[in-house]
Structures are given as structure tokens and as C-alpha cells.
């Protein structure tokens, strides 16, 4: 049609663009080569500075060139006076700004900026701060910028409350931002530290012999501020319950008590002439300076973990020199020192006793409350209420369900057991991708509850049958258990940690899907193993049992391995101590 503006055809445009690109590439390659050859000859002149600038301004992610540039700048520092250096670095900063415009998430540029800012003779931190704020207003999740900003704040000593107000602003404009929530979590303990006086006992501890609960942690926040934070974060998750950043912050708020590091249990057995020690966390006993004193005499002993797989383990054992405690008419006093932590635990082996132990009633509530704790029950209770309210509105929200479970655990793990199980069931349905995770978590909680029940009953029998367990945990708490019943669960293996059950005599694990017995390893007192209806398929799977010297009774009915030819004779060879074999 007439009158129209004539346009170049796309082919023409392409051609022109191609030519342009080729020209650019040529220049780029030539400059790059020039730079490299200069660096080889370690020339640090202004020309090199200029060449690198040319390249970096089009490609700010060229790390080698940044390094070269730093070499040049460091060289310049040696030949120029302070004012000149200041000028050089100032122009470096403005050059960096142009690089950041090319790529606001360039590692190289941000790192270099940090380097320059730190070396600048007279830094202008206020300007740097406003640069960060501008970048974050464009992209509030630019973590490079967050990083740099933290450095700037640190160097310039921005007041903490000002920074907190900054996070307020960012969260206000978009609360789906881990960086701001996280930053907040680092600021709050500085601004509103938890009051230093020991918290009053908020719950009646079941055992009065408890040491004061381990709550002296610098990263806690005072309660008044906590309540405000709860309100803020609740606004976030009520507004968008599917946004995980708020939920994670909430979990942080609800507290994560760190348990005191200590020796939680010392067990001594006269017969085996050995000592087992349990710690509150996995340690490497060979390197933490563990000292065993027997009747005032330090002993040279070798500590071994319960399973060769573990370099770190919460349970360590050592054999005493033969004959030291074997006489049943003697009384012995044993002390284990954990020199690194300035803590120790005594244990007396009285006359006529074949074994002895000393420990806290380890199953006090703190033990498993580490996920969420510390807060006063009333606060947790009201948090649970508001979560329940949200759950009513959003019955299928997984974050809400999970948080309710955690709150219930913190409040009354046994009392809420039924609800907890129901919520887990819903969780598995609404978030089927994480079904196995929930099953494992549920198993963990069930085991915790069973340990609590066992402790209240003051028995050494651990029975948790028919609870859909998929995994075993907290086995370090079962050091003293003599009888364990894991029947009718969904266990697939007895993991190496199982070897922590040093006192175990009877293992019942019928009706599971156990394939591996890896953890039934060097259990000195184990006599009976009941594995009816499991999935043990080869003789090799039974190999670990050979390390248990007292094994007498073994039930393998309903396992594939029973179909193996010559099974009886093979077993007799493998496990000569077994006298009562059921196939």
C-alpha cells in the first residue's frame, strides 16, 4: 500500500546484526588477548586497567580479569599517595556501578566492590548503603547485594534498630523473602536479647533431679519482642499460608533449644569388663580428651565406637584391663571426665552387682523438645490456637499442619499423640511427594513417646509394635534396654546405630520388611533374635549376628533365606552358638 514507511526486511536486519556482532567479537577477542599477554609480563599500568575495564564492562563475570585488576590496583597502592589512591578507587566504584547495571547479580562485580570498599582510604559507607537499598528495591532477593550490604553495615556500624526497620520495610513490601526474614533473625537477638536471669521453671519437671534446663543461648529473643514477632509472622502466614519463608521464620521464633553438652550416661558391666558412655551429641571420643578414672587411678583405655562405620557417635565403649573389676565382692568407683567440656560423670559399681549405670533420667521433656521449646507453655498454647484457627480455614495446608504437630510436641507429646497421628495422616495425603519424610518424622515422634513412657515406667523394656515405624532413631537413648519389641512395623533395616543397644538381650522384630541386620553387631548380651516374616534373603545378611557371642535363639520363619539350600548346616557354621533355630 502506498504511503507506508518502508522497512528493512528481516534478512537485512539479521545481516546487519550479524556484522555488528562479528565486529564486536573481534574487538573483544583482541582486547582479551592483549590483557592476557600483559598479565603474563606482569605489567601493571593504566593501559591494562583500561583494557580490563573495557572487557569487564561488557562481561562483568570474567573472574580472571577482576583478579588482574586487583593486582594492578595493589601495585598502584605502592606507588601512589593516599589522595591519588582514593581517586583511583572512587573511579573503580563508579565503574563497578556500570558493571552492576549489566548484571546486577554478578559474583565478580559484587566481590570486587567489597574488596575496593575495604581498601578505600576514606570510604563513604552511606553511599554504599544507599546503593544497596536501590538495588534491593529493584530486586529484593538479590542475595549478592544482601551479602555486600551486610558487609557495609558491619563496616559502617549502622545501628541495629535502623537495620531492623529496614527489614520491616522489605518484609512489608514483599514477605516472600528469606533474606529479609533471616536478617531479622540475626538482628533481633542483638536488639532484644533474652533477659539474662534464669527462666523460671515453667513446667513441673517430672523428675526433680534435673539440672537447670539448658536455656542460656545468645540467639534467643526477649518475650515481649517475641510476641510482636509472632503477630507479624502470623499476618504473613494467614495472608499466604503457602509461603514457606514465613513458616521457617516462625519455626525459628518458636525456638530451638540447644541441649547442654554433657555425658548423659555411664554404664559399666562387670562381666564383660567394659564401660559404655553416652554423650548428648555425637562426638569423636578419641579426640575429645576422654579420661577414665577407676578408683582414683586414671586408666589407659582405648575407646571404640559401637560400629566401625562411626567416627562420631553418641555412644562409645572401652574394655577395662582384664581382672580390674571382675571380682564381684569389690566395690568400684568410676569417673569419666570429658576434659574438653569440663564435665564428668561418676558411676559406682557396688558389691554383688554385675552391672551399674549412672545417668540423668534422660527422658525429661527437654530431651525431645529441642525442635520447639523454651517458650512458656501459655505462649505456645496460644500459638497452637491460632494455628488451629488457620487450619480450620485451610485444612489442607501442609505448613500449618506440620507446625501444629511441632507445637503439640512441644506442649504435651503424649497427650496430643492421637491428634498428631491424625495430622500426619492428612499430611501424607496432601503432600504425597514427601510421604516418606512424614513417615520418618512420625516414627521419630512415636519412638520419643515410647521412650518417655518407658522412662515413666522405669523399665528396661522398649516396646513399640504396630506403629508403622519406617525408621529407627534416638537409639542412643536405649543404651540400657534389655528387651526391645519392634514387631509389626515397616522397618527395612536395623541400622548401624542399633549397635548402641549395648545391654540388649532380646530383639523382637517379627512382621517387618527387614533386609539388613547391619546394626546387630557386637551386642555382648544378645541371646534371642526373633525375625519372623521379614525379608532377609541371603546368608550374608545374617553375617552381623556372628559377632554376638551369646546368641542362642534365632527365629527366621517366613524369610526368603530359609529357602536357601543347606540352610541349616550353613547357619550352624555361621552361628555356632545358636541352639534354638526356627526356620
Amino acid at each position: 500500500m502506498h504511503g507506508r514507511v518502508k522497512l528493512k526486511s528481516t534478512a537485512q536486519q539479521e545481516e546487519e546484526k550479524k556484522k555488528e556482532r562479528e565486529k564486536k567479537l573481534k574487538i573483544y577477542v583482541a582486547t582479551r588477548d592483549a590483557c592476557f599477554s600483559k598479565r603474563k609480563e606482569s605489567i601493571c599500568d593504566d593501559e591494562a586497567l583500561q583494557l580490563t575495564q573495557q572487557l569487564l564492562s561488557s562481561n562483568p563475570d570474567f573472574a580472571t580479569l577482576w583478579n588482574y585488576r586487583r593486582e594492578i590496583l595493589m601495585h598502584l597502592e605502592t606507588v601512589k599517595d593516599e589522595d591519588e589512591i582514593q581517586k583511583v578507587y572512587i573511579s573503580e566504584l563508579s565503574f563497578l556501578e556500570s558493571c552492576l547495571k549489566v548484571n546486577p547479580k554478578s559474583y565478580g562485580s559484587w566481590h570486587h566492590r567489597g574488596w575496593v570498599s575495604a581498601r578505600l582510604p576514606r570510604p563513604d559507607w552511606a553511599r554504599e548503603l544507599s546503593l544497596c537499598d536501590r538495588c534491593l528495591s529493584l530486586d529484593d532477593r538479590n542475595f549478592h547485594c544482601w551479602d555486600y550490604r551486610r558487609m557495609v553495615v558491619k563496616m559502617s556500624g549502622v545501628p541495629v534498630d535502623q537495620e531492623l526497620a529496614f527489614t520491616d520495610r522489605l518484609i512489608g513490601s514483599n514477605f516472600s523473602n528469606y533474606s529479609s526474614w533471616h536478617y531479622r533473625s540475626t538482628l533481633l537477638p542483638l536488639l532484644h536479647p533474652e533477659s539474662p536471669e534464669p527462666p523460671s521453671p515453667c513446667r513441673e519437671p517430672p523428675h526433680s533431679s534435673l539440672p537447670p534446663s539448658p536455656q542460656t543461648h545468645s540467639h534467643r529473643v526477649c518475650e515481649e519482642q517475641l510476641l510482636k514477632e509472632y503477630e507479624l509472622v502470623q499476618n504473613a502466614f494467614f495472608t499466604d499460608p503457602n509461603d514457606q519463608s514465613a513458616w521457617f521464620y516462625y519455626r525459628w521464633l518458636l525456638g530451638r533449644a540447644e541441649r547442654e553438652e554433657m555425658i548423659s550416661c555411664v554404664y559399666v558391666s562387670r562381666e564383660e569388663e567394659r564401660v559404655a558412655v553416652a554423650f548428648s551429641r555425637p562426638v569423636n571420643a578419641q579426640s575429645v580428651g576422654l579420661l577414665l578414672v577407676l578408683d582414683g587411678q586414671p586408666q589407659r583405655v582405648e575407646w571404640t565406637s559401637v560400629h566401625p562405620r562411626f567416627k562420631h557417635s553418641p555412644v562409645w565403649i572401652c574394655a577395662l584391663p582384664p581382672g580390674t573389676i571382675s571380682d564381684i565382692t569389690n566395690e568400684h568407683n568410676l569417673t569419666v571426665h570429658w576434659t574438653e567440656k569440663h564435665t564428668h560423670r561418676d558411676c559406682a559399681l557396688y558389691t554383688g552387682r554385675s552391672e551399674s549405670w549412672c545417668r540423668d533420667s534422660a527422658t525429661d521433656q527437654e530431651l525431645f523438645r529441642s525442635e520447639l521449646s523454651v517458650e512458656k507453655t501459655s505462649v505456645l498454647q496460644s500459638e497452637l490456637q491460632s494455628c488451629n484457627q488457620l487450619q480450620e480455614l485451610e485444612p489442607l495446608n501442609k505448613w500449618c499442619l506440620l507446625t501444629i504437630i511441632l507445637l503439640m510436641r512441644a506442649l504435651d507429646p503424649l497427650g496430643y499423640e492421637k491428634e498428631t497421628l491424625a495430622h500426619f495422616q492428612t499430611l501424607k495425603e496432601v503432600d504425597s511427594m514427601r510421604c516418606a519424610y512424614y513417615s520418618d518424622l512420625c516414627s521419630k515422634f512415636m519412638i520419643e513417646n515410647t521412650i518417655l513412657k518407658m522412662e515413666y515406667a522405669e523399665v528396661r523394656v522398649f516396646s513399640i509394635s504396630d506403629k508403622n515405624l519406617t525408621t529407627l532413631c534416638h537409639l542412643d537413648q536405649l543404651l540400657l534396654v534389655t528387651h526391645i519389641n519392634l514387631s509389626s512395623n515397616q522397618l527395612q533395616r536395623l541400622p548401624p546405630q542399633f549397635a548402641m543397644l549395648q545391654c540388649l538381650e532380646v530383639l523382637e522384630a517379627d512382621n517387618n520388611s527387614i533386609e539388613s541386620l547391619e546394626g546387630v553387631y557386637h551386642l555382648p548380651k544378645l541371646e534371642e533374635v526373633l525375625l519372623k516374616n521379614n525379608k532377609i534373603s541371603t546368608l550374608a545378611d545374617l553375617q552381623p549376628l556372628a559377632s554376638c557371642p551369646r546368641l542362642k535363639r534365632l527365629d527366621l520363619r517366613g524369610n526368603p533365606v530359609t529357602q536357601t539350600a543347606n540352610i541349616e548346616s550353613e547357619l550352624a557354621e555361621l552361628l555356632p552358638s545358636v541352639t534354638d533355630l526356627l526356620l
Partner: protein
Amino acid sequence: MLGLDSFNIDSVVIHTISIFFSGVCLQSPCSLLFEPVTLQPCLPSEFDVVILGTGLAESVVAAAFSRVGQRVLHVDRRSYYAANWASFTFNGLLTWIQQHHEESQPEEAQDWSSLLEEGEELIYLSNSKSESDSISNVQVFSFTSEEEEEEEAPSPDPPSIAEEQTGGAEEDAVKENSETESADSKEDDTKEKSEATADGDDEEQASQTEGEEPEADQPTTSAAQSQSEPIKKKISYPQLLKEGRRFNIDLVSKLMYSRGSLVDLLIKSNVSRYAEFKNVTRILTYRHGKVQQVPCSRADVFASRQLSVVEKRKLMRFLTSCMEETEEQQAYNGRPYLEFLCDQQLGDNLQDFLLHSIAMVTEDTPTEEGLTSTRHFLRCLGRYGNTPFLFPVYGLGEIPQCFCRMCAVFGGIYCLRHSVNCLVMDKETNRCKAVIDSRGQRISCSHFVVEEGYVGADRKQMATPTRSLSRAVLITDGSILPSDSDQQVSMVTVPPIAAGCPAVKMVELCSSTMTCMPGTYLVHLTCQSVGSAYEDLSPVVTRMFHTPESHDQENCPSVLWCLYFNMADGSGLEAEGHNLPSNVYMCSGPDGGLGHEHAIKQAESIFQKILPEEDFCPPAPNPEDIIYDGDNTSSAMGGEEEEKEETEDKQEKEEKEDKQEEKEETEDKQEEEEKDGAGEMEKEEEQTLQTEE
């Protein structure tokens, strides 16, 4: 922005455009009131499309035709662009008001039949204002002091007197004081009127009829003001006049839905590069006598202090769930939206928010309609900011001018103060063959597009009863909801304040939108007329602002000046059934909707009727992709088209100049649209970075 009065003929076009594009006056349409240039009647005698009226729809049509190579003549009888869509400076608006008070001179009927050929007849268009005037009931009130501003802080005496007003003696003193003041002001008044502008007699009459005691009014106001805010310096009327250029007061009050058809068109056609936009920063509503912020985005809901967490959840859930059509919703088809909202277990305040501020419908609007507008609102959220709306910097009057500019860049010819007197119709084909312009030139055209105001009532089909809009424009001294920032752009929905009253849409603009002077706010109120604009809107104004008629409103912003008028509702024009030749198309004036959908739809449908095969406003090409005649590459054109090449040459020069100017003036204004709202900030950043460097 288009400071140009008119550019009429070929030779002049390039010249004037170059002046225009070299950026003489990009700020505001302040020079709309140039003295008329002596025009030479030598327009080309043939066009593809002649367009009469520069309203939004006409301007879009003009740009669309010009862009695809049609020869466009675009004329307007007025001295300014954009007809009823125009923006005025304060002084410009006063002139406009005056014009609407004047008696219209009877049109001298001229006989153009000498220009007719065999088988043709004339259709006269209406060019007299009174006949076609879509504006009525214009009323103006000024509550400012007429005194010159004092440079120093107000003297301590008058406020202290005012504070002790309870005592009888003092009261007298005040009265005395006020009387002298009013006398002074009256003097000033008359001077002002004769000198400057438009405060015609009508205005005084109006204020006298409305206010009980007009003389006492002003001083009382000022006393009350000084009582409430003794420190704040009040803005006087002479100041308004002096700073009048800073105002860009729109005749229509609309907002651009960020996913509405206007924004889409601006982006698609690259016309967006001719303007800048600001986000509306908050949505407010008026409930229980209080102005409240409506939480509509996720961030708003999160930050809202008026909602409980449970309400937050309910609101968010409703907002997410209503985006999808469900059977549950369909069950409510035909039943009121309010009923649907009720049944969603949303509390009273949430229902109000959703009905009045988000869906912006009335209580008896059917559910399906309510949901559609709710969805539209929500879809527009978050594209450029936390509200669904954009507002063009320098006012809405910019938008039609941007399209005119696009048309001019592609060769359209513009004449203001130039009209078409009559159409030449071929009796046999019932088609318009040519038009006769106001200078008696016969110009042939294949199509004619006309603003409805030019068409006599006997020839057009209007919806009955006639619809009209009530408008009020206020200049106030403060925001109706003060916040940390004094630069908020607020959309305010005011539900009917009593049964039978209309729902009012209100837009409060701050000075950074370049529509009012610093220290003031420009407030637009719009509703469907029930009575006159004053009857419809003054109750709302009285309740929400401090005026002499209001009581106990000391904490509200004071109205400095206000204007009421009624405007015909453009949506009253029927699409079909007009008594016009088949190739004549009518565009309506502004409608009452908040967005621009009506006008854009109208423009697109006209374009498609005429050129069904063509793309509507395709993107303007990049300057570097245009083949200029100087280029060796352009050999495609044959020699037979010399004449046309010449015109093209001109167009291209324009284009070049256009681009150049753009580089100089607006460098990075471009593509602001595409950058998802960050555009503005980014630009700011770049500028600051540059200055820092």
C-alpha cells in the same frame, strides 16, 4: 504536551513539527491558547480518512489509520486537543468555564451548494456549541482568601482571636475583622475577574445561591482553618493563578487498568514512549464516616492493621478462589453479587471492600458481572505495582495527544480551530464523498470519522433516558488520608451515602503527578448523574472535606477551589441506527467507566469496519530499520511514484526528527511499560547514579 496550535499544510507541516519536536514545550498543554495563526486554505484536496474531533477514540483511530499508510486529516473546532478528554492548566480551565457560561453565537448558515456536483447533497454538521454542548450545570466555588500571600508566617493575632472565639466580645471582633477582609477580597475579586480569567458573573451568582452568606463564608473558613492548623500557610487565590501552569486538570476522571485495553494498546503500538505513568499507590474507601485503605494486594493484606488474621485469610482465599469459574459461582448467576459475598462467610467490612472498592459495583449488580469486574481488578494487580491502576503524568489529556502524535509522525495532518461544516453525500450510494471544511474547501475522502457532538440530535440514536455524568474537581490543601508520604495517588470509592444516592468514584492526585501545584491535591469526583453535579456530589464533598458548609470537619483537608459540572455520558450513544451515510462513523465522548475500554473498543471497531484486513496499531518500527531515500538500499520504489515518495520523504524526516528529539528528551522513557513497574524506579536509579558519578 502538544503545544502546537495547528499545523495545516504540507509545507508547514515539517517546519512546525520540527519546532514542536525540538522540545519547546513538552511540559504541559499550557500554550493551547495561542493566538490563531492566519491559515491559508490550501489543504490537500484528497484524503483517505478525515477525522473531526480529537477525543480519545478519534485520536486512536487517527493513529491507527496513519500507521498503516492511510492519508489522514485530523481536525478539531476547538483550540485545544482532546475535546472532552482534555486537561487544562488552572487558568486554562477558567477560560473553559467562561466559554461554557457564554451565550453561544448563532451560527451563520452558509450555503455550500455551489460546491456540489450532480447527484450530491449536503449534510450539515453542528458547529455551534449550545446545540451540541455536552457540558452543563457548571458551578464554581472558591474558598481561598483573595489576598496576596504573605511571605512571612501568618501573624499571631488572627489565630489567637479565632481560638478564643467562645467569648462573645471576641466573636464580634472576628466578625468585624472578617467584614473588612471580605470587603478587601471583593475588591481583589473584581480585579482578578477583569484581569485574568473566567470568574464570570455566573460564578458569583452560583456561589451566592449556594452559600447562605457568601460574604461571611470566606473569612469564617479561614478562621476555622487557622484554628485547626495555625502553622500551615494557606494558599491564596492569586497563588493558584500564579502557579496555574502547574495544574493539569482533566475534564474526565479515569484511570488506566494496567491490563486494560488502553495499556495494551499503548504498549503494542509503542505510543507509550510518548508519555510517562505513575502508579496509583493506594485504594481507599469511605466507610462509617472514615477514610480507610482497602487492602487489595498481598502486601496490603499483610500490612493491614484493620483486618484480623482470620479476615486476612478469608479475603486472600476469596481473592484467589474467585479467579476461577466454579459451579458454585454459576449457581448465583442473576442473583446479586452481595448475596454471593454474604454466603462466602466474609465479614461486613470484607463485603464492603469487595463490592464497592474491588468490584466497584452496586449492591444489586448480578453475581456474574461482579465476579467479572473483580477478576479484571485482580488481574491488573501487581503488573506495575500494588494497585491495578496507572495514571499518566501530566494528566489524562496526554493520552489522546500521544496518539495524535503517532498519527502525525506517520504523516497525518493536523488542524485545530478548524472544522468540517458539512458532508457531501452521494445520493445514490448513500456514501460521503467529500467534506467541506470551515474555510469552504471541498476535501474528498473515502471515510469520515466524527465526534458525536458534531452530529445533530436528529441524526443520531441515543439511549433513553439520556445518561449523564456528574463531575466535581476540587483543589484541596491536604490528603484525605495523610500517610508517611505526601505523594500518594489514591483511588477512593465512596459507596452511596444514602439510599438513592449514586456511588462516587474519587481520584486524589498529588503534585508529583504534575497535575497540581506542590502543597495541593487535585481531587476528581465522578458519578452517574441523578440530579445536577452539585446536587449529586456536594454532599460527599461536604462530608469528606472541610468547606464552609461542613461541620466538625476540622481534621479534613480544606477545599480551596472547586468546580461542578455535568457531562454527557458517552456510553449513551447507540452503536447502530444513526441517520448517516454508510462510510461515516461516530465516536462518543467519555463514558462513566473507570477504565478506557469503551473508547478503545469503539476505535478498534471503526478501524476494523474500514480496514478489516489490517493490523490495528502495529508496533512502530525502530528508527534504524526504516529505509530512508538517502540510503542506497532503498531501491524498491519505482519511478512512477515520485510524488508519493516525496511525501514519504517528509514523513521520514519527521520520523528522524522525532527520534532525535526522543533521544534528547526522553532517552529512557521507552519501554517503561514492559519493565513491570520497575521502570520508573530503574530510571530514577540511573539518574541518581549518573549524578553521583
